[in-house]
């Protein structure tokens, strides 16, 4: 199921991406980032392809995909809302905002709405700690977050 803004899965395209990065020293991470940028997630069939190209075991590549929080193995919702959950944002009440967002969207942190519209996730520090609480919405940084901002975001995501 292709997600808005991402390319549909194609083994040929994945091969191209892998080939264009394989010359890099320690290429696994740059390849995975590029794959996720193209498809929105790291599809399972990519793992053996990377392993073969870089002369690694499948287990090693699978280990990398699952170790890092950024890499997804399932497509995300059409909008991704990441709310900062680290201490500076906690000091400014991010927990209340997270509860509010969960209630508004009817999902828990880490989940996607059943209609595939919104994925809600925690993130640990965007470096906006002096303008807390903060969020990253579809790659856009938001500081001084409040309930109104979340209402706007949810409304925006509904479109």
């Amino acid at each position: 199921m292709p997600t808005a803004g991402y390319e549909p899965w194609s083994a040929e395209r994945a091969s191209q991406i892998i080939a264009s990065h394989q010359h890099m020293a320690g290429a696994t991470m740059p390849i995975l980032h590029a794959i996720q940028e193209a498809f929105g997630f790291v599809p399972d069939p990519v793992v053996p392809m990377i392993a073969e190209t870089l002369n690694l075991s499948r287990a090693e590549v699978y280990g990398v995909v699952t170790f890092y929080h950024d890499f997804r193995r399932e497509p995300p919702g059409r909008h991704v809302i990441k709310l900062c959950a680290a201490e500076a944002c906690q000091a400014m009440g991010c927990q209340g905002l997270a509860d509010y967002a969960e209630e508004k969207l009817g999902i828990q942190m880490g989940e996607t709405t059943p209609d595939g519209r919104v994925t809600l996730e925690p993130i640990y520090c965007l470096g906006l700690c002096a303008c807390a609480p903060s969020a990253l919405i579809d790659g856009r940084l938001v500081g001084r977050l409040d309930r109104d901002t979340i209402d706007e975001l949810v409304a925006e995501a509904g479109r």
Partner: protein
Amino acid sequence: MSVVRIYVPNDAAAVACGADRVAHAFADAFAARGTLVDIVRNGSRGLFWLEPLVEVETPAGRVGYGPVKASDVEGLLAAGMLDGAPHPLCVGLVEEIPYLKRQTRLTFARCGIIDPLSLTDYRAHSGYKGLERALTLGPAAIVEEVFQSGLRGRGGAGFPTGIKWRTVAATQADQKYIVCNADEGDSGTFADRLIMEADPFCIIEGMTIAGIAVGATKGYVYCRSEYPLSILVMEKAIAKARQAGLLGKNIAGSSYDFDLEMRMGAGAYVCGEETALLDSLEGKRGVVRAKPPLPALKGLFGKPTVINNLISLATVPVILEKGGNFYRDFGMGRSRGTMPIQLAGNIKYGGLFETAFGISLGELVNDIGGGTASGRPVKAVQAGGPLGAYLPVSQFDTPFDYEAFAAKDALIGHGGIVVFDDTVDMAHMARFAMEFCAHESCGKCTPCRIGSTRGVETLDKIIAGQRREANLAILTDLCQTMKLGSLCALGGFTPYPVISALTHFPEDFGAAPKLPAAAE
């Protein structure tokens, strides 16, 4: 006729508070009027309560307006902002703002002042003077200069930079590396981010000098993925430096070669630990390595590697330009030079404050930071990130110094200070520290991997009031095991926030206050 110049920061925090919209609103307003105005997207000065801070160049100096919203733009222009006219948002001459004026900016001297991607601007503000002098000194003397400066690692442990460099310089190898640790994952810290976005050439220059000093020809900047704007700015700066012959073969016409590459992390906090970072750069899971061997001897791809925090490397140009002794003259005790302290969380004037070591914690939080943003009393501050101790107000006389903090069982770490008001529940914060460790553990060593999960469970029992005294004893014992038995700082330092919260705020854990004097 000279064109008026205004500055609208392209700093992630300023952008998060609407700087892009402000810049567009100005561009539209000027286009509608047919006025020629040069809009420079500078970095931030680090005065975040004023962001977006728009500055206009006037004969008297740069006049600031902030925090500016896109809807303020027409009003500002009508009031005569381009001539530096008064307006409710006017903060006067930016250089004269006390928050900025009280600072000693050595590492962050150019931040917010220059166009981050203009080499001309960079050179006009002493840029590449450090490299010029380094080229006349030669490798051995560069290392000595850095050693003399007393510069210590700004990432956490505070290890002397000069000693690291000496070790790598003395090691024979066909390839050596310089790795810049820009995996600034501590909550409350944003110094790396700010400098990457405000003065990227400074990092490139520092790494180049490091490369010449130890004989490394290749460098990597490993930046966390949570900083997309920083990565973009750094990549552009690297390309510009390469184009100008300041990276690549025969840098700046010398006989030295040095090139740089940006690499992005993928949301793993543990990759801020130097050996986990190296594994990640090699394309593996970010698992901590046992030391020895030191990265200085066997680092990236098994080769001798200087791995320094970004702030350490960004401080190298000013040390080379002005001399190790100049830098050493700032600070106190064995903490030499200046430290970019980051005031964050529930604080009125949150931002970056670079000053010589020795300033007291209370001065930072109350005098400079203006107390809490909520207006309620301060209860605790966490210094040094998620693995740093919580300090109560009774310890506000502690000077900002590696040894003075260590004496209070606290850490300076990367210089972050997160302020909490009296509504914070310290048992919850202690639980969060354990939960964070469980979430982020690389899994290699048992005390960290299992201890953190058991820590969460034990704290849950304490919070629920189950066999409180017995569980507090278990928690204390567990913390001791993690502290002594963990392979790296993640497991080893998680006890700091937990034990400090318990020691200073026992009432939050349902325990009787042990120190009535400390409760004031």
